[in-house]
């Protein structure tokens, strides 16, 4: 293959970003999580900015706006330390609420992750089993609830595509998707559109106008059987599902030569 899965996801995601939007990304740690939740999103937003979306605002760690990427020699691994404070940028948000208000709808899209995602679009980052004495205790809802409720749309970035991750029903709803479809979501009074694109190492899921999950594309080299085998809910008819498109030559050049010449974003596994 002339490019990596990470580069394919990066370009595909960039195409979904519109000019003038505001993108919000946190800082995940651990290789797989960092790659999916922070690095691919940053590379995709940069690609969008350098191609069709020059007015995209990138909010790194949710608090520093349009940083000078050329000054960033390695991806930071802590959100509120000196290196990001000293990174030149257009604005820094020092409190909550700050320069932008999530609750006013200022954020067009964000990125989140968790341990379980279900076919209704709900995300779990809290626990497996009973919440009072869980089988597995996880970190908690964090900002997932806010992401799913307020942001224009949410990208769910899942570094592992396994049956235990993509389930019929999550054990704890931290981020609310489309229970009862788009109509059901509307009744809950949530302002944002909710989860819209779900990226995994095997495929891209999305939700249609009624709030029903479908497979938008399958990555090159992944068979339909493999996808069915590693997903815990019914995927429906996959016969018409396209292959996730590869980046163009020009996009690949921008990713490799301009955005990520040192490989700090997309090559951490290579």
């Amino acid at each position, binding site marked *: 293959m002339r490019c990596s899965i990470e580069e394919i996801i990066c370009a595909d995601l960039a195409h979904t970003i519109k000019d003038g939007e505001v993108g919000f990304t946190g800082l995940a*740690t*651990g290789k797989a999580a960092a790659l999916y939740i922070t690095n691919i999103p940053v590379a995709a937003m940069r690609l969008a900015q350098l191609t069709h979306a020059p007015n995209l605002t990138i909010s790194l760690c949710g*608090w520093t706006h349009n940083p000078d990427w050329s000054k960033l020699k390695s991806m930071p*691994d*802590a*959100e*509120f*330390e*000196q290196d990001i*404070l000293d990174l030149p940028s257009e604005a*820094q*948000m*020092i*409190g*909550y609420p700050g320069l932008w208000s*999530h*609750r006013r709808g200022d954020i067009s899209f964000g990125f989140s992750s968790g341990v379980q995602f279900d076919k209704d679009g709900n995300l779990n980052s*809290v*626990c497996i089993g009973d*919440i*009072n*004495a*869980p*089988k*597995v*205790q*996880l*970190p*908690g*809802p*964090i*900002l*997932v*609830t*806010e992401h799913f*409720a*307020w942001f224009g749309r949410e990208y769910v970035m899942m570094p592992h595509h396994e049956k235990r991750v993509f389930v019929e029903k999550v054990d*704890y*709803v*931290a*981020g*609310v998707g489309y*229970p009862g479809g788009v109509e059901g*979501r509307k*009744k*809950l*009074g*949530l*302002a944002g559109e909710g989860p819209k694109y779900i990226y995994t190492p095997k495929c891209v899921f999305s939700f249609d106008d009624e709030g029903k999950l479908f497979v938008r594309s399958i990555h090159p080299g992944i068979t339909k059987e493999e996808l069915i085998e590693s997903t815990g809910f019914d995927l429906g008819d996959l016969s018409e599902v396209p292959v996730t498109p590869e980046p163009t030559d020009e996009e690949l050049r921008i990713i490799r030569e301009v955005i990520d010449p040192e490989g700090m974003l997309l090559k951490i596994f290579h």
Partner: protein
Amino acid sequence: MAERTVKLCSLKEAIDQIPDGSRIILGGFSIYQRPMAAVHELIRAGKKNLTIIGSTNTIELDMLVGAGCVSRVETSYVGLEKFGLAKNFRRAMQAGKIEIEYYSEMLAWDRFRADREGMEFWTVDFLGGSDILTYNDKIVPFKSPISGKQLYAVPAAKADFALIHAYAGDKYGNIQHQEKVLMPQTIDFDIARGCDNTIVTVERLLKDEEVAAGNQRTIIPAFKTRAVSHVPYGSHPTPTLGVTKMAEACFRSYAQAAESEGAFNAYLEKYVFGTNSFEEYMELVRSEFSEKLEV
């Protein structure tokens, strides 16, 4: 003429004022500027049945849980960020030893804002469908009296004590922040304004003229402070912005110790019970870890 009250005291004297069973907010955010010296003192004093209220909690909570000081937690996150999971907390939760009340991250901060404004609750509109609502009967749904929209009353944190590690302060309890601040500092402003009993440890003790020179950086005025203690490096191994860096190696050694109950008890014996003060603790870690702490 009567003398002005000096609120400067030893950390032990300050922490002795906290009864078992208290509701406590530990200042700072995530792995940044946490009141670790105060946490050590709570453990040394053998406090029990504490409720810890937070927005995001990490080592400060995990250590207290591992030491058996905590019976209840109200927060959005317990982990160690880049240092991994909070294993003491995980063990205690999986054994059903801790009562948990979840709030999402900004929702948890809203509780401090309610206290700051003297309100019994804060109003939000975004909890429909979430299990935060399902499992938390303190959050009360109501209809907007203006539009009829579904809203949710989120209870104020109502902490008995707030423990904060700050940049600087004077002996009367005027607390000032560093030149530049971020969320882990500004959350402390909301916490302190909303609590009647704020105990602060400071990196630097200020003279009267220094307070005057930086009076716009005073974020907790003396009358809001219950006690102040001078504890340099008091957030170690978490950083204090502009003063100390993250003590990476020490933090990793903590995370490793927390992997098992036995190793963690040995950690406590050595670093907390084996030292009489945070100053002694700092001497010990400096003799073991060569990492430079100053920014």
